[in-house]
């Protein structure tokens, strides 16, 4: 079974530029999550989708971050404009829409903002 796919794996940009990350969840997983992991910290939830809809985006800095999940499958996360403090690993995860389901994570995108 294929896991969660993410691209690109690495991205280096200058501050104020824009960047987009892509995620393809495990087939059949209704719930998709984007996490931000700053070096030395645990992952922090940015946004959660259930099928097409946003369930929780309370931790998403909406002035610069946006995310969408088209057709309830793939998702993109965009940052515009990027700040130095956005340097982090962005992890995508998916799970079944069932209580107690396991979160499966992708390899992440390591973003460096110069």
């Amino acid at each position, binding site marked *: 079974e294929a896991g969660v796919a993410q691209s690109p794996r690495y991205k280096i940009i200058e501050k104020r530029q824009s960047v987009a990350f892509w995620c393809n969840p495990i087939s059949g997983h209704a719930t998709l999550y984007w996490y931000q992991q700053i070096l030395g910290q645990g*992952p922090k939830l940015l946004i959660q989708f259930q099928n097409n809809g946003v369930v929780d985006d309370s931790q998403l800095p909406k002035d610069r971050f946006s995310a969408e999940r088209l057709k309830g499958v793939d998702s993109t996360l965009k940052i515009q404009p990027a700040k130095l403090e956005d340097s982090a690993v962005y992890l995508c995860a998916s799970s079944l829409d069932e209580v*107690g389901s396991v979160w499966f*994570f992708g390899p992440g995108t390591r973003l460096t903002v110069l």
Partner: protein
Amino acid sequence: AQKVTQAQTEISVVEKEDVTLDCVYETRDTTYYLFWYKQPPSGELVFLIRRNSFDEQNEISGRYSWNFQKSTSSFNFTITASQVVDSAVYFCALSDPAQDQGAQKLVFGQGTRLTINP
């Protein structure tokens, strides 16, 4: 509010030693799930175990074992006869399904960086 605490920031041991990673959690709900994930240098979070709040049986999987104690809100992870390949950051996490709109949340601890030296 949910909270997971991993008090050990870094642990370093010599190969073949046993090592225990501590995890303490806080939740007001009676139904919840606890997880351990491994994050090797490659960066991907690898699922190790899930435990629900009604199952306090300890679990053993090869060299790995987990001790769940509701009385102390702890879910500790022990590696027996550690190996260099066990070197990674280990995260304990808590999922509480009793959220608005049925949306589960997974809250992570800060992680413990484990280094196994040859």
